[in-house]
């Protein structure tokens, strides 16, 4: 068993939670996703190769867990309208911290991007992952990462310049 995966996991929680929020835009759901993804990661700890990037491995698990969650919701016929859940800014209980986000035109601009652009933007520009790492996490070709990322960033510049 790889030593210290538990510690790494706990240390990664804030970033996992942040990525989960980018994916689902709902605070309670994000916390559920993180918890579920951690459980799945621990159950499959043997598949993590020490020496490779733990954060990238975890982001991939988290995202796959999210996709499974969406699929389950759909088959159970109780799909929430996630586009209505824009609780990233201003969720109850996060006031002092998230109100500072309100300051940021940028945050709002990012929030308005389509999910496929938002997730790649955050992985590359906020999490500092390479295009290849992002492609592995998102399970798309590197060319797709680049076209989505370029579109997201062009849009971001347009929106913040107009603000």
């Amino acid at each position: 068993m790889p030593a210290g995966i538990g510690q790494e996991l706990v240390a990664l929680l804030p970033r996992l939670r942040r990525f989960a929020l980018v994916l689902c835009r709902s605070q309670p759901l994000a916390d559920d996703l993180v918890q579920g993804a951690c459980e799945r990661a621990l159950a499959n700890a043997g598949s993590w190769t020490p020496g490779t990037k733990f954060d990238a491995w975890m982001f991939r698990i988290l995202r796959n867990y999210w996709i499974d969650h969406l699929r389950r919701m759909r088959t159970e016929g109780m799909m929430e309208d996630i586009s209505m859940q824009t609780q990233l800014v201003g969720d109850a209980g996060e006031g002092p911290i998230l109100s500072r986000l309100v300051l940021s035109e940028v945050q709002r601009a990012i929030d308005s991007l389509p999910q496929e652009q938002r997730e790649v933007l955050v992985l590359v520009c906020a999490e500092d992952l390479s295009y290849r790492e992002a492609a592995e996490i998102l399970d798309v070709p590197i060319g797709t990462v680049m076209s989505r990322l370029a579109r997201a960033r062009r849009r971001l510049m347009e929106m913040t310049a107009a603000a």
Partner: protein
Amino acid sequence: MSQLHLTDEILMAFADGELEEPTAAAVAKAMAEDPTVAKRIMDFQQSRRLTRSAFSMALMPDVPPELQAAVLAQVASYEADGDSKAGSDIKPPQDAWIRRKRPFMQMALAASLAAIALALGYFVGWQAEPGTGGLIAQLESPLVHHELNSSASGKDVELPFGRMRVISTYRLANGSLCREFQLRSSTEAAEAVACRNSHWNATFALASPISDAGYTPSGGGDPMAAYLQSIGAGQPLVDEAEAKALAEAGR
């Protein structure tokens, strides 16, 4: 050489340090020759900085105690379990994942872009807006040069076009004296570096409009820090060392 079509994807990859040679060299050449190409690359750098600021560690919400506790409990039960369950449906990362970006290259690129921005009269800032050159136009003012000769770091000086403050003073490996300073008017703030040979020359500048919210994008991609590192600024001269260096330079 065949014509290189400068798509957004190529320029973005260049800005991110993800482009392989020889394409990177071709883009660098195009950037030096064509201000519009430089501007597009700077926009990609800017969007990265903005995103990083919006997601900065300082703004990251605390993990709720319940979540923290739940995961700690999972970890504890996993570690008590001992035997790891072999086999899984999760693919391990590929070897190629290990390829790391070259942080130094990135910083050198940021610095060279900013230097080009200065030469072209562009600003790297909240909004890259050519043509609002208030403070940038003052960098070569005799008043600024005078303060660079005499002001100690950390002291504010009122000038007709705004307030000036020298931040720090550096001696480069080649012996030249460089000073980082700020200019601030009611509408604009600029950070700059000037180095002295026989007289002061601005070698780097960033300017941005002052926003009402007082929000300043910053963080890991700080171009000023990258620039200072790229010229080998090292540790600043302080107190007597600074005073002595200024006195010698003034002679």
